[in-house]
């Protein structure tokens, strides 16, 4: 085997070279490898990596051939370790032929690799595995036409049953064929590719592939040590000029255009039969986006989320964590543990009114963690079941009715995950004015996932009437501001959902892994901010500034909103992270310091409150400090205005909560 660090450029296919299996993840490559090689297999890490590569021997047309199974990849030119290993094997092992293993149900993913193999001038045979499952789903693939378009042999297979193995062996025994299918990119990219190709040394094999890689994957291209340094530098200059033309990263633009070429091929060879009986999942999937039938499904899902997060997460789990784990064990233990500390201020900083353990860790672990855990679990279930895109389709309709154009709706939906990141996605909007409008709406009225979780938790203890009023105030605000936005945002339909995945039973492992990843991300991000926020409040309290701020805010917080003075500290926390502020209000509510009306008003104010510090800095980055201050300057009085008007209205109408 040639070392991947050799000074060789792309090696030409060798008649005596190995057969290399390439394909996307989970397409049955390893099953096919097992069929071809039986028991003559060695598995070892690819040199310099942790990626395992299996090698074995197979008998093809009476000749003993080496077969190599590569890791599953979706893009041969991407910078990941698996992709690098696969690329290195293709470049340096001089394969006689590649078997591109495809999932027949998802041909487009494999054809992306086919287009790249074509560019790399590597001969291959396309094995359409899982053909039986494709047939069951009513998918027909015209393999003859596909073979004509690609210019290579195409074989249908069911590897798990050994079906099609003889056809594959016959195709492998024939002369290796190079594919004629490669993607054509837009004019600017094609010109850049041509420029780079002319820079490459004479005799460079597959120059187009090398050029595309130099333009899209600098690090990967650096591994092609046959490319002289001065060529790489000049290619980098071409790449910089080209990159300036696109909003998205160049790698993404190239992949996207390659995918367009693939879609055209798929459209010409793919056909779907009406299967004899529509599955229950398919019927449910269709109903879930129906303008009328979809509504009760949305309501039922939201109700279940509310019950699970609001009652189980915020009630049962928070009660256990706060009352038992922290109340009975951690806080008393921490108080005992720091009792020997001679300096009072240090003791207070750890276990005092604004103490590290008693506030930051208690809020972080005892209140927010159980709530966001249940929320993230539900969110992962929605994602993995395929319902989330359907929910987005349903939510898209009322948002459009509010007067927001299709493109503007998208960041609003994304804001339910994280407003900070959603602010960044406003880049998809065409004008600065549009971006500013949507950024304002996001900062104003769209609670992020963590805040929404805590709010749902608090609602769980307040009953449906408070929840309905809170939803009504938010939707009313969105309608009012959305209407204003529509006066300056000319509408255009959105087609942001590319494909609706089939509705299915979520896989437990996927849901658990997604939830774990989210929790880890949340804890890493949130705890340092909670600690910083608590330290800030502790400092304000020690300097006597907190009571001065409370007195200063008293006309607003106590007289206008009708909240107790302690709520001021929670609103200050809300600027650091809105979920932190919401957790503080949750704590006050549970301690009986807020009645239902005060809870409702405080929830509305904290939802509409100024953007959290991360979102504020994102607005500074995306626009300017002046804009961020202007957004905060509008939202701050607006949140208090709405909260105060709500408080007065509920009192005047004598609405029982």
């Amino acid at each position, binding site marked *: 085997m040639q070392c991947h660090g050799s000074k060789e450029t792309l090696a030409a296919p060798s008649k005596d070279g190995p057969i290399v299996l390439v394909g996307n993840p989970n397409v049955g490559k390893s099953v096919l490898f097992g069929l071809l090689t039986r028991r003559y297999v060695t598995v070892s890490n690819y040199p310099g990596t942790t990626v395992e590569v299996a090698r074995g021997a197979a008998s093809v047309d009476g000749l003993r051939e080496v077969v190599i199974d590569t890791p599953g990849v979706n893009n041969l030119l991407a910078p990941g370790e698996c992709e690098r290993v696969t690329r290195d094997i293709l470049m340096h092992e001089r394969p006689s032929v590649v078997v591109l293993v495809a999932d027949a149900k998802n041909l487009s993913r494999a054809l992306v690799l086919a287009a790249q193999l074509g560019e790399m001038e590597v001969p291959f045979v396309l094995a359409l595995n899982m053909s039986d499952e494709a047939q069951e789903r009513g998918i027909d693939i015209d393999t003859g036409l596909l073979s004509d378009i690609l210019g290579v042999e195409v074989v249908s297979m069911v590897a798990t049953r050994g079906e099609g193995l003889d056809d594959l062996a016959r195709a492998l025994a024939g002369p290796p064929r190079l594919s004629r299918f490669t993607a054509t990119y837009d004019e600017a990219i094609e010109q850049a590719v041509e420029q780079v190709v002319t820079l490459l040394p004479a005799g460079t094999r597959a120059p187009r592939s090398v050029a595309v890689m130099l333009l899209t994957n600098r690090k990967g291209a650096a591994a092609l040590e046959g490319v002289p340094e001065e060529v790489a530098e000049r290619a980098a200059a071409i790449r910089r000029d080209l990159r300036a033309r696109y909003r998205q990263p160049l790698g993404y633009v190239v992949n996207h255009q390659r995918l367009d070429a693939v879609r055209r091929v798929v459209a010409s060879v793919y056909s779907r039969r009406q299967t004899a009986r529509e599955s229950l999942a398919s019927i449910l999937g269709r109903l879930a986006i129906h303008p009328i039938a979809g509504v009760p499904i949305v309501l039922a899902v939201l109700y279940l989320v509310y019950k699970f997060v609001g009652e189980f997460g915020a009630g049962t789990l928070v009660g256990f964590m706060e009352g038992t784990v922290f109340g009975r064990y951690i806080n008393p233990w921490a108080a005992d543990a720091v009792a020997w500390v001679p300096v009072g201020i240090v003791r207070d900083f750890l276990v005092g009114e604004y103490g590290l353990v008693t506030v930051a860790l208690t809020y972080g672990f005892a209140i927010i963690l159980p709530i966001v855990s249940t929320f993230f679990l539900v969110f992962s279930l929605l994602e993995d079941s395929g319902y989330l895109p359907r929910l987005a389709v349903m939510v898209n309709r009322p948002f459009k009715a509010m007067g927001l154009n299709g493109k503007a709706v998208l960041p609003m939906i994304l804001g339910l995950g994280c407003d900070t990141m959603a602010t960044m996605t406003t880049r998809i909007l065409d004008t600065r004015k549009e971006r500013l409008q949507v950024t304002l709406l996001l900062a104003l009225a769209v609670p992020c996932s963590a805040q929404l979780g805590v709010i749902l938790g608090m609602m769980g203890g307040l009953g449906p009437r408070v929840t309905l009023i809170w939803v009504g105030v938010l939707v009313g605000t969105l309608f009012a501001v959305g209407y204003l936005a529509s006066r300056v945002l000319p509408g255009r339909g959105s087609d942001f*959902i590319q494909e609706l995945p089939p509705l299915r039973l979520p896989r437990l492992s996927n849901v658990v*892994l997604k939830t774990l990843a989210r929790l880890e991300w949340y804890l890493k991000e949130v705890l340092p901010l909670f600690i910083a926020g608590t330290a800030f409040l502790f400092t304000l309290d020690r300097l006597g500034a907190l009571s001065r701020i409370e007195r200063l805010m008293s006309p607003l917080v106590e007289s206008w909103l009708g909240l107790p003075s302690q709520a001021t500290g929670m609103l200050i926390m809300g600027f650091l992270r809105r979920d932190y502020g919401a957790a503080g209000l949750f704590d006050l509510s549970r301690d009986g310091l807020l009645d239902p009306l005060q809870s409702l008003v405080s929830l509305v104010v904290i939802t509409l409150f100024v953007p959290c510090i991360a979102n504020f800095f994102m607005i500074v980055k995306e626009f300017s400090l002046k804009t961020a201050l202007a957004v905060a300057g509008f939202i701050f009085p607006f949140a208090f205005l709405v909260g105060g008007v709500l408080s007065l209205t509920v009192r005047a109408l004598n609405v029982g909560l």
Partner: protein
Amino acid sequence: MKCALCGHEFDADDVRCSPACPLAGGCPVVCCPRCGYQTLDESRSVLVRLARKAGAVAKRVAGAREEVS
């Protein structure tokens, strides 16, 4: 990876979290380049790696037990 919202397939390496974000350092969030939906790159999560390792060990133990029996 595949976007859970719009179904678009993309490489997480192409669309790492924006360096403009003040919390970008070590951030595992990737945004779908088509619709902007935020997904977590599970390969960056320590908890996920540990869970996967635990799952693999459990499988091996179960396999070894089957072989013994």
